[in-house]
């Protein structure tokens, strides 16, 4: 803290007023748009509020119901499937691209731009483009597979391939993670590699023993973000498949959205939201607990 030397001193009245006024919009914002809704949401989840009919308090009925709702189960399994398949592939893609770009030449800036551009393409536009690429009969991907003699699947039209299709599209948009990995790579001191080279360590050995451990805080950070991002998947499915075929891309947040804004089951949807919140929280905290075992921080811990 910059102000430690002042902490004992009395507050300056004008400074307190200025400080509170400056922070006031943010404080109001948190109360009105975050904490207020959080409390209201918990309350709503104990009711059968649906905008149209009279509201009753049903206590834990919504939670009991969602535990037995086959669509909730289906959407949760779909979401976990996409997360389990997507996160490793996304991180691997981003890391590979970053390793490839980690060299000091002019051309790298060009490739960096090229790989990053998909990440800022509006999701709806990207999804419409991928609908066309994945189109089973005339689409680019199946045509390309056809050239090497492979009969491509129906992709978005197939219950088996619809989720991998969404993951495939997400790999195209990994430029943001790539840039963060690249920044992490640039932060690894060169001396470590030089020392290892003098000791005769192979390229692979240097990667395993220097690059990966030094990069582990970045991997951890991106893993946490990536898991949360995959659990929230919605827009891609909404545009690509509308949750189909046969609910194979009905994800948890999609189901929540349908309940809230299509069927207006606000009470039930609030219960869904709270379960989601608690699960995301537990999953994130668990990752932080496990992080001690594999994330290497330079300060404080030598091998």
């Amino acid at each position, binding site marked *: 803290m910059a102000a430690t030397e002042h902490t004992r001193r009395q507050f300056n009245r004008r400074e307190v007023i200025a400080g509170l006024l400056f922070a006031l919009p943010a404080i109001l914002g948190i109360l009105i748009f975050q904490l207020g809704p959080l409390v209201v949401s918990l309350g709503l989840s104990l009711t059968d509020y649906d905008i149209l009919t009279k509201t009753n308090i049903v206590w834990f009925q919504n939670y009991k119901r969602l535990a037995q709702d086959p669509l909730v189960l289906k959407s949760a399994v779909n979401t976990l499937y996409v997360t389990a398949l997507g996160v490793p592939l996304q991180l691997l893609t981003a890391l590979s691209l970053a390793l490839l770009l980690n060299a000091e030449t002019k051309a790298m800036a060009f490739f960096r731009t090229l790989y990053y551009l998909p990440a800022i393409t509006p999701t709806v536009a990207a999804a419409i483009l991928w609908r066309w690429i994945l189109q089973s009969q005339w689409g680019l991907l199946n045509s390309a597979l056809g*050239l090497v003699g492979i009969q491509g699947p129906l992709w978005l039209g197939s219950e088996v391939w619809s989720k991998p299709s969404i993951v495939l599209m997400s790999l195209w948009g990994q430029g943001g993670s790539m840039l963060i990995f690249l920044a992490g790579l640039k932060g690894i001191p060169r001396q470590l590699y030089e020392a290892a080279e003098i000791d005769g360590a192979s390229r692979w050995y240097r990667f395993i023993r220097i690059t990966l451990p030094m990069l582990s805080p970045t991997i951890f950070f991106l893993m946490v973000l990536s898991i949360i991002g995959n659990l929230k998947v919605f827009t891609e499915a909404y545009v690509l498949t509308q949750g189909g075929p046969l609910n194979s891309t009905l994800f948890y947040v999609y189901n929540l959205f349908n309940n809230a804004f299509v069927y207006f089951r606000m009470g039930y949807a609030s219960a869904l939201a709270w379960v989601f919140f608690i699960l995301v929280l537990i999953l994130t905290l668990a990752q932080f607990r496990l992080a001690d075992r594999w994330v290497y921080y330079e300060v404080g811990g030598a091998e």
Partner: protein
Amino acid sequence: MTASMAPASGAGAIRLTIGQRLLRAWNRWIGAALRYIVLITLGVVFGFPFYWLVTTSLKVDTQLFVVPPVLFPDPIKWSNYPRLFEYLPFHLFILNTVAITALTIGGIVFSCPLAAYSFARLRWPARNTVFLGILATMMLPEQVTMIPQYLLFSRMDWIDTWRPLWVPAWFGSAFYIFLLRQFFMTIPSELEDAAKIDGAGYVTTYVRIMLPLVMPALTAVVVFTFIGSWNNFLGPLIYVNTTMKMPISLALRLFQSLHDAEYGLMMAASTITTIPVVLLFFFAQRYFIQGIVLTGLKG
């Protein structure tokens, strides 16, 4: 490295035989060549969808539904673009998006550095507790607050207006406040003290001295707010119903539900949606990269 390393008298591994040097140069050359081959291959993989997007929008139908696919549109068919505007007023959707995005950026630029400065530099009771409270809300998924927010806005009669999309921005955003606060903390306090001695008030000090100093961070924040607002889909989907009020992302989805199978037309619409973001990226590329490295945000 199988060649003998031992008899390099005195100088350790520094002195190499000509053979070893040649081998190293060769290895390095092969390494660089391989790297470029992979870079270019992946460049095609990542870039080709964009090429496909634009060329599909310029193809006549007989070149669209053929196997193997046609790489170069011939003849070039421009008519998909004027046709878009016959169906829906896309220029209006872009103007709507620009307006919503500008109002959102205005709100973020007003509220976030102001609060960040207060949390970083001004001393008031319970300041750090309040700041921690704001940080804690970053853990809160929007899915939890979405329903009560909708009920709040509907009670205020704001449904089917732009207000739910931009008004919250004027009340701060936890992550940007956190980011800017970190930035304010690195600025030496001598500058502020000097302003105080000159008799400047808190508002003057903030606007004249402090705000210009956090410009790099603020620019990054603006760029990300732009992308976030331009690409926002869930918000408009929930709040905007009237076609004429829609931002481009939602209008594109509406258009898709009407013309899904007309791929040429759909690609033209998607191209129009994507171009402004890509243009901004090329103009502000430096700030993007800087912003990502600074914030760990992915865009």
